[in-house]
């Protein structure tokens, strides 16, 4: 039952066996969330620090809720990246916090690798809540859990990830997790949103949304960051919507339903239309609920074994 991993830094090197354990455990915690009293004493006496060096409402609330549902004690530290003055050592900041003896640290940081750096400096379980453009493993796990819940099995599933792949930690973690679980992954978006030689990750690429929709059992639609527009990676949000927006019109061309996912927050009317995001085939709200369950599962499996 013990996971092979000691920290959750990313899904790149997490085995199928570990992912299955995390998902199975998550489904058992998911049941707790349906009870009148949605709380179990499992992590009583465990202290969890939530270190958020970047704004995040959804992920932070989901983690906090998961911790509280497990009866862990929580402390929160939030600082935007800019308030960490240049030259100030991340290590110092963290070691100060750690003089206070935390068992678990959940960390969000704008720079790839910062969470791994943290795991080298502290004697605690470290969970990556998103580090820059690197990984966001709990998001991918909740995505995979939601696909499994809806469609039964991941093996052989055709999943299309649509949007800004290059700047997306959600995409990278999903690719790693889905490949490990045996899914076929197709990426779709403009070439300026594709990282160098992305096929080397074992995925296929198309620049044509209709082709991606024709392929997919599930589409995971990524949020388009408005700042990308200014950098010239896409000429305009309007054009993006016309070429890559998931609309009723696009989906109605297909003869079969596709499961629709989105990691949120949604730019309604840009990457996806409101009626599609709210349709019967959308599992976006399940993703949110499963997010709490998956995070409870990770916390139990990593902190419980300490």
């Amino acid at each position, binding site marked *: *039952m*013990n996971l092979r991993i000691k920290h959750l830094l990313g899904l790149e090197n997490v085995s199928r066996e570990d992912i299955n*354990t995390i998902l*199975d*455990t998550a*489904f*058992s*915690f998911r*049941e*707790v969330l349906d*009870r*009148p*009293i949605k*709380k*179990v*004493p*499992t992590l*009583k006496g465990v202290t969890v620090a939530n270190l958020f060096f970047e704004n995040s409402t959804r992920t932070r609330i989901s983690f906090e809720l998961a911790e509280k549902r497990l009866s862990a004690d929580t402390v929160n530290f939030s600082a935007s990246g800019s308030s960490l003055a240049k030259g100030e050592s991340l290590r110092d900041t963290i070691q100060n916090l750690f003089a206070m003896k935390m068992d678990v640290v959940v960390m969000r940081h704008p720079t790839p690798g910062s969470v791994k750096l943290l795991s080298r400096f502290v004697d605690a379980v470290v969970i990556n809540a998103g580090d820059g453009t690197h990984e966001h493993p709990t998001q991918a796990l909740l995505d995979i859990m939601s696909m499994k819940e809806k469609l039964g099995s991941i093996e052989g599933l055709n999943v299309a990830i649509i949007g800004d792949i290059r700047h997306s930690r959600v995409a990278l973690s999903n690719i790693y997790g889905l490949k490990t679980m045996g899914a076929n992954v197709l990426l779709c978006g403009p070439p300026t949103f594709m990282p160098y030689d992305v096929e080397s990750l074992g995925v296929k690429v198309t620049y044509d949304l209709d082709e991606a929709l024709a392929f997919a059992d599930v589409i995971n639609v990524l949020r388009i960051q408005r700042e990308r527009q200014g950098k010239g990676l896409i000429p305009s949000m309007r054009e993006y919507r016309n070429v890559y927006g998931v609309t009723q019109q696009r989906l109605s061309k297909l003869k079969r339903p596709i499961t629709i996912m989105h990691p949120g927050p949604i730019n309604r009317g840009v990457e996806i239309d409101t009626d599609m995001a709210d349709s019967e085939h959308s599992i976006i709200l399940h993703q949110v609920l499963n997010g709490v369950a998956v995070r409870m599962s990770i916390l*139990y*499996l990593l902190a*419980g*074994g*300490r």
Partner: protein
Amino acid sequence: MNFKTRSQLMDETALRRTITRLAHEIIERCKGIDDVAIIGIRTRGEFLAKRIAKKIEEVEGKPIPVGVLDTVMYRDDYRMKKQLPATEITEIPFDVDDKILVLVDDVIYTGRTIRAAMDALMDFGRPSAIQLAVLIDRGHRELPIKADYIGKSVPTARNEEVKVHMKEFDGRDEILLVEVTE
């Protein structure tokens, strides 16, 4: 860990008879089965609960609600173990308020599982009473907990274990007293 069998506590027939008796005792003590539900504690308590419920249905002519409870999330001792126990899904598909809940487990030993189970049940609502049925009471209680329905009381040593085998899980019905040898 290795085990050496000391004695057979029950064979298939004895187990069947014990389950029949426990079912009758529950009906008798609760004066019928209105507002009574059975909750099995995973793993083998689940199968035991289902067998008792079936027997009760045979006798009373109507079904009795059965739930399954996983106590891992409520345990206070899982962190002392080398292997982290797997959590399983708890299924209590009925309202527990104002019901007599009969908890069912295979063996009662320290009482800690039952303590965890009672804590869990309280989070589902406010039962009018919780009772406890076990197949084997092997003594050595660490908490003030006592079973209401007992299949068999067996004095044991600390280095012994009661091994319950049930068809649904182990492929056969048999209860053994074994000695743990390193």
